[in-house]
């Protein structure tokens, strides 16, 4: 019997674990690993470009294989600049299911916004809303939105990643899985759909009750995370509170409604989630129309002066 050195042990573990991607893809370093598989940087030898290869481990059970295939189909249905593009899918030579997607080079959203102004952070957040809203329009609910799943690419584009636990709205209605912890990232039936802190309360009870408002909740939690570290204005706090309301019916009915409020705040307009005191309303009105108000004031002053002059 041969005695394996530590280096040989490491190497042979890698031999077993590393996907056999055949002639088309040269597999390089491991980029990340979750309950639903591993993502490697790979080179598409045919098209001569780097891609990300998501593949299940060699010991994968068949139900997880079906989930990966469904994830690939969900991604294929979501052609949007804010959603990572899928290029290829299938089974590797060693039988493992895989899909190939665009390799995103960039930073996690929460890392990217650390040095950005509140306005810039909010515009990034609106880009996330845009992608999620598009998915909703296609009947897909992400169910695991969190900072780790949003990247800012090298051209400044915001990309929503990891649709591994996403479901089509029609599927969610009949889904009996419960939502537990997301530490494993596992997406098997009856386990782990979501991440504590970003998961709507109804996801903990029964997935059958989950609709787009679960993503609204997660986006509210994401917005809170993005605005951490500075003083958050009262209307923004109200937007976050409404988006993350424990009861789904108290939240924004859609991501578009949430985005509209954020956009309104950015434009200095009134926010539906916030009951504004009169003096704040007046101040906001003045800020939005200061030039006109000053012009009118100047006109009145001049007019009064003329009247006074003639009277004299």
């Amino acid at each position: 019997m041969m005695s394996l050195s530590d280096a040989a042990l490491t190497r042979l573990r890698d031999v077993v674990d590393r996907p056999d991607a055949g002639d088309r893809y040269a597999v390089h370093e491991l980029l990340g690993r979750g309950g639903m598989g591993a993502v490697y940087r790979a080179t598409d030898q045919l098209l001569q470009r780097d891609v990300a290869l998501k593949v299940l481990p060699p010991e994968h059970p068949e139900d997880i294989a079906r989930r990966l295939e469904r994830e690939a189909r969900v991604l294929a249905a979501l052609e949007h600049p804010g959603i990572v593009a899928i290029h290829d899918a299938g089974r590797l030579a060693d039988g493992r299911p895989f899909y190939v997607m665009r390799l995103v080079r960039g930073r996690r959203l929460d890392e990217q916004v650390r040095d950005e102004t509140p306005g810039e952070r909010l515009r990034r957040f609106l880009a996330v809303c845009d992608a999620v809203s598009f998915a909703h329009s296609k009947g897909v609910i992400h169910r695991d939105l969190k900072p780790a799943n949003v990247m800012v690419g090298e051209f400044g584009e915001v990309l929503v990643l990891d649709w591994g636990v996403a479901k089509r709205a029609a599927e969610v209605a009949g889904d009996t899985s419960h939502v537990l912890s997301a530490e494993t990232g596992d997406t098997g039936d009856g386990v782990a759909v979501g991440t504590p802190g970003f998961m709507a309360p109804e996801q903990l009870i029964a997935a059958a009750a989950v609709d787009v408002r679960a993503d609204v909740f997660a986006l509210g939690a994401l917005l809170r995370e993005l605005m951490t570290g500075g003083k958050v204005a009262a209307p923004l706090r109200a937007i976050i509170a409404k988006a993350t309301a424990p009861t789904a019916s108290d939240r924004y009915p859609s991501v578009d409604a949430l985005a509209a409020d954020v956009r309104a705040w950015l434009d200095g307009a009134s926010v539906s989630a916030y009951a504004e005191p009169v003096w704040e309303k007046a101040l906001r009105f003045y800020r939005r129309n200061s030039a006109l108000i000053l012009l009118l004031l100047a006109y009145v002053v001049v007019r009064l002066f003329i009247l006074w002059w003639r009277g004299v």
Partner: protein
Amino acid sequence: MVVAAYRTPVIAVLRKQWSLEMEDAEDLAHDFFAHALEREWLVRYDREKGRFRTFLRRCLQDFASTQYESSRRLKRGGHLTAVSLDHAGNMSTAAEVDRLFDQEWARSVLTLSLDRLREECGASGRQTTFDVFVAHDVDGADEPPRYADLAARFSVPVTQVANYLHWARNRFRGHALETLRALTTSDAEFREEARTLLGRDA
């Protein structure tokens, strides 16, 4: 299969936790498996209660503790013992011993898989394929030799080296998973053990 896969990790634990010399650890490991088979400990394994590996590790702990107590009694009575366990002087933590057991178990399973690959290659006239694989992924694991060097050494074209490695790696993966299947009793245990085998739950 069970003895072949677990003999090395059992010896490693006996040496680490109980400070035994190699020869004594081998003797005690032999006694442990002999007892296990004779008294049908392994038959008592209930897969509902956890992994087989954890069960066997617990059996070993009980067995070694009993041996330790026996050796103390014999010492007090002025008798010599074949194996002298020195638990008190050992500073290894339980976590360290567990890690060692896992590591040696993985080494053992992959060694068995390599043996199977060697047998397969030998039986199918693919000895060079096996030798290239060993030269690149086992002996050369620290710093793998270049394909061109292997091609020159084995007098084959460079492309053939790539083909040999591709085939051998696939077969090795298959043998490793088959070995693991043979050592586990359910799909869930198989997947858990695969994570340990591949060092993913470290």
